[in-house]
């Protein structure tokens, strides 16, 4: 369904593409996709020289949940497209001269007929395929970990000698810069992570940075067709993504199934087989605590953005309030001596 107020955005895109591709481009339907606070996302149906196709337009809002660069995500799509990790085909990146669309944007080809919502995973007909979706989810993540970063066009990504050190410094810095109130649980987590810092990663991998239920496209048969939202992608330790995908936040309030899909040990085994890597359990404990801290940092940053930024998106307020509360309880469960693990299972 096309909402009338979205027509100007769709028409502006059609005009831009007609000029950019030097072809006849006509607008069909346009709808806005909810979720994903870092961009305005639209599903647009167009015809190009009379041929119908679907595209996904992601346009910068005035304010964003995560400080990211659109070029970074788009260039990561370019690097990954065509590998065993399925991603939408990147079509257009407009960083400097958005013309008719007024704000920078990127365009990818639509992968039609799929769902992304974590909530839908628990509903028919998808709930019958949760195990298969989970198998596909962690197989793809294993394939991502197995990619040889030296053969991919990833020169735009920084290489850090000690990824854990770098990530901790970065996200601790976000918390200390953006916190609107003192964060004693976050500070305790930062100290724990400092005390238990693992050695530099044995293997440098492409890390998605937000690999979770909600950021991949699945169909009614349990197949996974695309991994989305690569804004936080970076070179780092492959355990970072695995730990992030296990955070209790992504299966709340059901703490026994990672991503509301599979028991963690099963998901871990699938990942090991697909990646050809063996999980260093000591390092993995560190990355699990780090994942919970990173999530808290993102929620804290979104709260700051809501209060001081120019965009008053409800998702920013939601992330910055009840989600901070929830993430604090997860971290507390992880770190309190003698924890009863009310909200998070013990670290693997």
């Amino acid at each position, binding site marked *: 369904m096309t909402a009338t107020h979205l027509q100007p955005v769709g028409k502006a895109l059609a005009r831009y593409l007609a000029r950019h591709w030097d072809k006849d481009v006509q607008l069909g339907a346009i709808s806005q996709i*909810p979720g994903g606070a870092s961009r305005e996302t639209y599903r647009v149906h167009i015809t190009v020289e009379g041929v119908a196709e679907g595209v996904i337009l992601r346009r910068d809002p005035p304010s964003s949940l995560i400080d990211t660069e659109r070029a970074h995500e788009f260039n990561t799509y370019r690097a990954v497209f065509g590998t065993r990790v399925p991603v939408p085909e990147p079509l257009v990146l407009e960083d400097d001269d958005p013309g008719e669309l007024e704000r920078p944007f990127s365009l990818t080809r639509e992968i039609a007929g799929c769902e992304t919502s974590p909530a839908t995973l628990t509903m028919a007909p998808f709930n019958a395929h949760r195990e298969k979706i989970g198998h596909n989810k962690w197989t793809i993540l294993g394939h991502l970990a197995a990619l040889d970063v030296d053969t991919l066009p990833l020169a735009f990504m920084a290489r850090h000698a000690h990824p854990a050190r770098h990530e901790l410094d970065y996200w601790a810095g976000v918390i200390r810069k953006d916190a609107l109130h003192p964060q004693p649980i976050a*500070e305790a987590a930062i100290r724990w992570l400092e005390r238990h810092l693992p050695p530099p990663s044995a293997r440098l991998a492409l890390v998605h940075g937000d690999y979770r239920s909600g950021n991949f496209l699945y169909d009614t048969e349990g197949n996974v067709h695309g991994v989305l939202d690569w804004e936080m992608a970076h070179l780092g330790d492959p355990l970072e993504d695995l730990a992030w995908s296990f955070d209790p936040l992504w299966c709340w309030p059901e703490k026994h199934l990672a991503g509301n899909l599979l028991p963690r040990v099963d998901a871990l085994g699938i990942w090991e087989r697909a990646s050809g890597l063996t999980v260093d359990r000591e390092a993995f404990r560190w990355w699990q605590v780090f994942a919970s801290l990173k999530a808290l940092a993102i929620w804290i940053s979104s709260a700051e953005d809501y209060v001081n930024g120019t965009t008053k998106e409800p998702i920013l307020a939601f992330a910055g309030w009840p989600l901070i509360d929830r993430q604090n309880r997860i971290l507390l469960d992880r770190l309190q001596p003698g924890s009863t693990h009310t909200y998070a299972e013990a670290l693997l």
Partner: protein
Amino acid sequence: MIPAPGRTLTDLAMRLMLGIAPQTTTTFAAADCGLIAQLLLTMGQEFERAVDTRMQDIHELKALFGTAPADAARARFMGATPASLHLRDVNALHDEGMQLLAILHAQAEADDAALNARIWAFLRAHSERHKFETLG
């Protein structure tokens, strides 16, 4: 006059979620309604308890600091009261106490296991007190 603002916010949230959201014509608008309704529910809970939960934290922090080694900043906090019961004033003193707690926690981790355990117990009680029931 609205005699029970917390309950009214909850009522508004339910109307938005169950009455208005189903009438919207796009998924985006329906999702926005759901998110705003959840925020209203959150505000409904917080409205009723905001000052009380923070004052309980402040009282427990003072008791906790009383079991810690003497310190001028903590002593000042233990003798302080909020400038008023307006939330902004209660928040100011609450923030001061939580900041002092973070500093004390770092020290206790290094050399006082019993105090460290009491601080974790406080943080557990604090987080349960501030939990949003509707959200799990």
